[in-house]
């Protein structure tokens, strides 16, 4: 008798459970999926640069061959250099192996030899943008309003995350095309 009633009282629960299990399961799944990384700013910027390398297009003349390196130059000393080397030394972008260099702001020749130039906050953004003008170089920076000032891509903090502004016209003036995907992801598209 006791057993019987105990049994009975379980049943509605079971039915309810089996109906809701699927919902719980998908709720759990949605909840637990995804990433929640907390990373250093330099490593996130490095990862962005790698993505920029993959999502921009240089004129064929900018490379010696299909397998020749894509050169990312970092102006002056910045922790991003170490992060790039640590994370992407052996990576390739559209078939081009990445090469990471430290370059000097004062050497236009060094700057123009790169496909991407990263301008740390401490460097003279306007001067560097001017000295690679016309060469197939994608100029990426992090100082306030970098893209508005004629850089191609500029990092901006948004809350606790890092986004970027894009100035496709500035990139185009150097002969570099930024993909529509990159523009879609950009926090804002600026420039004339």
């Amino acid at each position, binding site marked *: 008798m006791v057993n019987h009633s105990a049994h009975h009282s379980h049943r509605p629960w079971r039915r309810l459970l*089996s109906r809701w*299990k*699927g919902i*719980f*399961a*998908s*709720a*759990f*799944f*949605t*909840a*637990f*999926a*995804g*990433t*929640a*990384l*907390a*990373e*250093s*700013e330099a*490593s*996130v910027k490095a*990862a*962005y640069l*790698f*993505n920029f390398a993959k*999502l921009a297009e240089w004129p064929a003349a900018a490379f010696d061959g299909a397998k020749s390196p894509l050169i990312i130059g970092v102006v*002056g*000393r*910045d*922790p991003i250099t*170490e992060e790039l080397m*640590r*994370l*992407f030394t052996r*990576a390739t972008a559209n078939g081009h192996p990445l090469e990471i260099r430290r370059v000097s702001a004062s050497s236009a020749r060094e700057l123009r030899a790169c496909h991407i130039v990263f301008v740390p*906050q*401490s*460097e*003279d953004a306007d001067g560097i943008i001017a000295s690679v003008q016309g060469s197939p170089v994608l100029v990426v920076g992090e*100082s*306030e*309003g970098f893209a*508005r000032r004629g850089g191609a891509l500029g990092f901006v*903090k*948004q*809350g*606790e*995350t*890092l*986004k970027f502004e894009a100035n496709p016209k500035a990139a185009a003036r150097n002969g570099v095309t930024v993909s529509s*995907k*990159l523009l879609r*992801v950009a926090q804002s598209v*600026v420039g004339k």
Partner: protein
Amino acid sequence: MNFGVRKNIAGASIGGELRGGRCSASNRRVCESENAPPAGTGHANRSFDKTSPIHEFSRFHPTEAQPLRVTPPGHYSADLAVMMPPRTNPRVTVPLRRGACSALFTALLIPALPPKIEAADPDELLKHLSIEELGSVKVDTVYTASKFTEKVTDAPSSVTIVTRDEISKFGYRTLADILRATRGYDVTYDRNYAYAGVRGYTSLDDFGSRVLLLVDGHRMNDPIYDTAAIGTDELVDVGLIERVEIIRGPGSAVYGSNAFFGVINVITRNGASVNGVESAATGGSQGTYSGRLTLGKRLPNGLDYLFSVSTYASAGRSNLFYKEYNSPATNNGVATNQDGDRYWSVLGKVSYEDFTLQAGYVTREKNVPTGSYGTVFNAPNTTVDSRGYIELRYAHKLDNGWSLTGKAYYDLYDFTEAAFYNYGAGPVLNDNPARARWWGLETGASKMFWNKLRLSFGADFRDGTVLKESDYDVNPYTSYANVSAKQMVIGTFAESTWDITKSLSLSGGVRWDHYDSFGSTVNPRGAMIWKPREGTTLKLLYGQAFRAPNINQLDYAGTGQLANPALRPETIRTYEFEAQQQWGRHWHGTLSLYRNDISDLITTDMLPNGLTRYDNLGNARVLGAETEIEGKWDSGLALRASYARQNATDTMTGMKLVNSPQNVAKLRVSVPVWSDKIFGSVELLYTSDRLTLTHQPTGDTWLLNATIFSRKLARSLECSASVYNILNQKYRTPGGTEHLQDMITQDGTTFLFKIQYRF
């Protein structure tokens, strides 16, 4: 007749001696009056009840860009693609029967044992994140610890960061709610002010003077009372907070006075985050309503502006019973309609290139229902606190790598009181105003050398031009005190962080402060941070800090109270070991052991002639251990649990400190109920017994709060519903010496609805 001191502390509050001081010396007039309650009711027969404050919560970020979230029936492939780095890894599809059991099993298993790359190496993951996913990676940095931006794990302090997202999801109403939920912090409320305490030390004799409160780096503690306003008197509406950086441990080596137990920096939103017009309104129990209107934008030329106005009114509890006043002469202990609270505040800022101009003002009026300072019980006693400032700051990076900062500001603080005293011939209106005006300059420079060594320097100057306190009866006019003082403070600091190897870094700093009152003080701090392997951080921290005697303590002389210009600063030495461990991508744990040695605490001294005076009398020691575990997922699921054990002793008497719970546990969970649109959040806060000033235990408290929060349900609309103290605990916190009540009853169950719309 407040005798001038907003809080007139008598009896060594740190040792928790009987607060007999209330009825002698400075309160003589009150006790002789008819207003004095029946003898003995205040101290006899104190009932024990639940104690402790409210709310809980954590840091965690919403990830708005949740790419690739498509879940075809029977397959859970798309979500896997998010976890699994796209591109290099072909998307793994896990075909599932609709059978619920296996779905559940798989769902539970996959997060725990995800395939290949996910395995715990953040570097591997970072390499393979898509550009959309990068936009949701949290860049975990803190500014407040060292006055420059660094990774939280590199900061020479124990840090908690609370984001705007968490404030919304957990329904936090004030900074007090935020701190209550933070490991190592505690809040005491006496139905007028909320006081922050840190790591087992929540004093009942000040206005939060041992915590430094900053708004966007601007010092908020005023020079007269050192108030750190964290309740409804706080300047920044919580809806305007971008994040709060909360430091446990001393910060005097960078900030000077008040950065004694901790530093709280409220970072406000900018125009870009508002991007248009935002309006918000709340309504809740106790006749509480509030509204906010904010305009903000970043223009294409880079100019960013934000203007905001807020208003708040709460009728409060219509009837509050205090047994200490339970006599016919004092309305049988019931304060009727004496708990009202209202404020309005404004905040504005404009940034262009290297310059930011920011200004804010808040004025808040509170009815005081407790009959504090011997005022007539159940009379319309009110206090008004107004705080404002305007600041121009500058930040510039030079081509050679130096970053320079500078600021100039002008600040004001006004306090007035309408309080009724009865000297025997009926109620007399008394005012006890304080007025402070000060201005200051700050400058700093910082540079990283060879990618290894960061040097920072700074200097600041503060000049209190008007610092006045007085105390008088309005009619017939009788003056009890009229004090006017000046204060000049200069300070300079240097700090360096040296990365000796990739895994070991040392940092050290020292600051010199000079006050025209007591002279100079030098406060160093040092940290060794070792990362023996990826994901593990060990910190060894030492720090010294001080709190300078404030104007009220130094210069106030009124009825029954003497000034004491010979006061020295209070000092603290702290030793801390902190271990942090990241497990995989979702779990993070912290263990912290600390010892705080506190000397020369300024408390009220009872002189043989019956007068009182502030003196450097108290010494205390706190030994503590804290542990915390936190889990976070991009979907918004987040949980955090912490436990703290804190043994706080008055080293003069060997007795336990008052208002210091020995065991504190905090748990909170936020769950995405429906995709990224509806979140349910619950927090449970446990506080063990604490002692009142008469050494009565308050009892344990369990506080349960819950909030349902939704966004994106309709375009631009956010709304939430919160219930606080769901278990309806009748808990109490110890009353300060200005109260006859040994314990002050806190709110039972209350609720609040909030709606926000962006145009």
